[in-house]
């Protein structure tokens, strides 16, 4: 009998736990993988409303729309900076990555014997031009598109995407607010600046033990939005940045800003900007005799930066959305094919564009030529959840933002070396998600 009771208790426990996992709420992770320590207001006040707890569905019509039978090609669009922008070199890498994915898909027979065709659109940040490009894509009857790198362009395209209902896969814009707009027509496969900021805060303040960190950033939206999360997070861990200086894109002499920074006697400096300005800055900082740590944003992880900065870059630490030196055989194959096809090394934008385009192609193979169904399968967080791309595993959160782990990149003997960023400690999680009003 004793044996019976013990067995009964075990059975009850098994049933209770299995049923609670069926009907009960799974422990919720804070939005953006934020610890309670760094989640807004969490230590002082529960919010009345928490957004992004559940993914939004698209409730509009269109799932029963049949594709035209007279198609002789399957169009997928590209939106990226190809001319008239300071980040054209990044745009060209992105285009090449997307092109390689299309060419490989066509070698494998396209879609039901019809070739994929890339419809190329240049983006310009001025006067909302990206909106006009998305309208052109609709006129061209594309099934989906990838884009872009510039955050202004990506936002403008995103709003037009909702209106015109074209699935959008973002492969190069790490602006956290992009997916925080709640538009159920876009996913992002590149890890965002929120993760980069958390990684940097952990590295700078908790691992490296700095306390007086000065920041100099680009005045563009990339700098403004990127530094926001870093700044807020730094405050929440008890270390507000001691000074925030700005520079314009294309600026070459930073003497005035650096004089102000040096006057604050920082024990580390963080640069948030494009590769060229960041490289010039680090040279000028070292020339002033500053020997302590210098950190940078993700765009410094490039050959351009290493070339311009030279030996001044030694020891600089940044973040990267993937590990280019990974042993992943698919990544190695991609890099070899890319080198052969385009005569250069693939960068982060090329690799993510390749992954993003392959996701679109896989979606079309899965559900056919219907924009809503392509959207559905891209966003269902089942079919492609934890998709193994060449840039790593793609884990989409409730906003369809990739929250895969970030990498720390450090310049060592003229090259970047990569190690996984250590996640923040999350011992003080707050379980409840509702406030009493």
């Amino acid at each position, binding site marked *: 009998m004793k044996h*019976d009771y013990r*067995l*009964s208790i075990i*059975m*009850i426990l098994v*049933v*209770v736990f299995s*049923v*609670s996992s*069926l*009907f*009960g709420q799974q422990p919720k992770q804070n*939005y*953006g993988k934020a610890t309670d320590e760094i989640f*807004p*207001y969490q230590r002082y*006040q529960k*919010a*009345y*409303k*928490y*957004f*992004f707890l559940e993914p*939004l569905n*698209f*409730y*509009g*019509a*269109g799932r029963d729309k049949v594709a035209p039978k007279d198609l002789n090609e399957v169009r997928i669009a590209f939106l990226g900076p190809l001319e008239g922008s300071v980040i054209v070199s990044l745009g060209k890498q992105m285009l090449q990555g997307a092109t390689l994915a299309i060419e490989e898909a066509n070698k494998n027979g396209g879609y039901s014997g019809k070739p994929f065709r890339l419809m190329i659109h240049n983006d310009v940040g*001025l*006067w*909302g*031009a*990206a*909106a*006009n490009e*998305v*309208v052109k894509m*609709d006129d061209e009857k594309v099934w989906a598109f990838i884009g872009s790198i510039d955050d*202004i362009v990506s*936002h*403008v395209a995103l*709003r*037009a995407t909702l*209106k*015109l209902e074209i699935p959008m896969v973002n492969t190069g814009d790490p602006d*956290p*607010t992009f997916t*925080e*707009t*709640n*538009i159920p027509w876009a996913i992002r496969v590149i890890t965002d600046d929120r993760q980069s900021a958390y990684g940097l805060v952990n590295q700078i303040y908790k691992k490296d033990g700095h306390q007086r960190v000065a920041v100099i950033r680009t005045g563009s*939206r990339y700098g403004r939005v990127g530094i926001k999360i870093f700044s807020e997070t730094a405050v929440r861990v008890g270390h507000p940045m001691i000074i925030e200086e700005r520079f314009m894109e294309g600026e070459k002499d930073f003497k005035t800003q650096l004089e102000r920074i040096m006057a604050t006697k920082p024990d580390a400096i963080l640069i948030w900007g494009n590769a060229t300005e960041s490289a010039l800055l680090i040279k000028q900082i070292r020339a002033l005799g500053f020997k302590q740590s210098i950190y940078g944003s993700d765009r410094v992880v490039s050959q351009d930066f290493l070339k311009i900065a030279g030996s001044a870059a030694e020891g600089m630490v940044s973040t990267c959305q993937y590990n280019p030196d990974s042993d992943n055989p698919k990544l190695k194959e991609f890099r070899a094919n890319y080198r052969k096809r385009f005569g250069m090394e693939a960068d982060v934008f090329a690799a993510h564009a390749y992954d993003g385009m392959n996701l679109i192609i896989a979606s079309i193979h899965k559900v056919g030529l219907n924009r809503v169904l392509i959207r559905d399968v891209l966003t269902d967080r089942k079919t492609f959840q934890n998709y193994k791309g060449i840039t790593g595993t793609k884990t989409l959160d409730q906003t369809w933002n990739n929250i895969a782990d970030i990498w720390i990149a450090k310049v060592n003997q003229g090259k970047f070396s990569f190690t996984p960023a250590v996640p923040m400690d999350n011992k003080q999680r707050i379980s409840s998600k509702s406030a009493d*009003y």
Partner: protein
Amino acid sequence: MDKIIRKFTMRKYLRYYSVMLGSVILMFVVSCGNRTPHSNSDQRNKSATDNSEQEAVENYHAGSDLAGDTKPLPIYGNWHNFTTKDGLPSDKAYCVRIAGARVLVGTHDGLAVYEKGKWTTYTTKDGLPHNGVVSIDVSAVTGDVWIGTLGGLSCWSGGKFETFNQLNSGLPNDLIYCVICDQKDVWVATAGGAGHYDTYSKEWEIFTEKNAPMHEPWTYGVSAGAGKIYIAAWGGGVIEYTSKSKQFKDYTDPDGEMEIDLLPDDGIVHDVTTATSWANGYLWVSTYFGLSRYDGTHWKGFFDHDCGLASNFINFVRAKGSVVFVCTDRGLSCTNGRSWVTYKKNDNNKDGMAVVLNYGRADDDTKNKSTREIPLSPSISHNFTIGVDADGDKLWVATSQGVSCGQLLK
């Protein structure tokens, strides 16, 4: 012996099975008990669906409205739906505007005009700059129809379409998300900024982050009221422009965070705004995160968990008198700030219901709160509502799959 062992084993398994089943039932009951108030009210409401449409309306009494009177919220029924089968150029309708005896509908494939029971379509062949018609307004001064398309702005006057675009005018961007007429002025919301066109002087002004308190120049809605223009700026909340003094003021979410609304009623619920509408001294602001109302002093927030709002994802709002019509992705909601009526279509047939939520007395939310479902046959053509307009006893709704016209039920 085998029989005895089998019997014993069977009994043992039956006991375990009973324990397991009991636990499952217990957990199910507990989990049902933990469902949201919405789910509970949904269950309760099912008993109210037997009444006929008219009988249900006759039994309905709404609570006091914003002005404090006892005028009930209007309820519309006898819905008539229109699709391509009825003459629309596309099932995907972006906007609708009632202009006297005509109804103007913007669709993905052209402008549709309903007059005397017939639809007439206008496209680029007739002079429109683009077939995708996103927004329409009619000038109260001239009667001209201003049409915002995916590829430029058009003024339809005297049977002719005059096109304004980025190349031939001061239009900030060719994709017009919203156009409104305010006396002699025409305002447009675009991703390149807000545009103002003076029809007398023929001059354009553009407002962006360079000359207005916007975070970005991305504007998606605009409305006018009491000498002011209210611009819905994506990521920048609402920009208020006083026409007389030419001064700006911005309203943003006080907590400054995208992932939360920290306090109820402390300001606009989110900075990603989609539309504004002003009437009766109240500014209504829609977002993809909920609805806000501003009376010039206080903000009030509305979410789908704390009122009768169909969904927090709101495409468009239009206020008429004390009532605001809210186009959400899960039905059309109407409110005066206290009582709610939401029109929803069933998933599997053309019928649906009007869900009526009354909060009773204005001074006490707990008294006389009631929910009712009025069956509608047919209902609106689709729950993904994008545009709305009301005039007299008619309510027109533009949806993801057709256009609907409802009749005010007496």
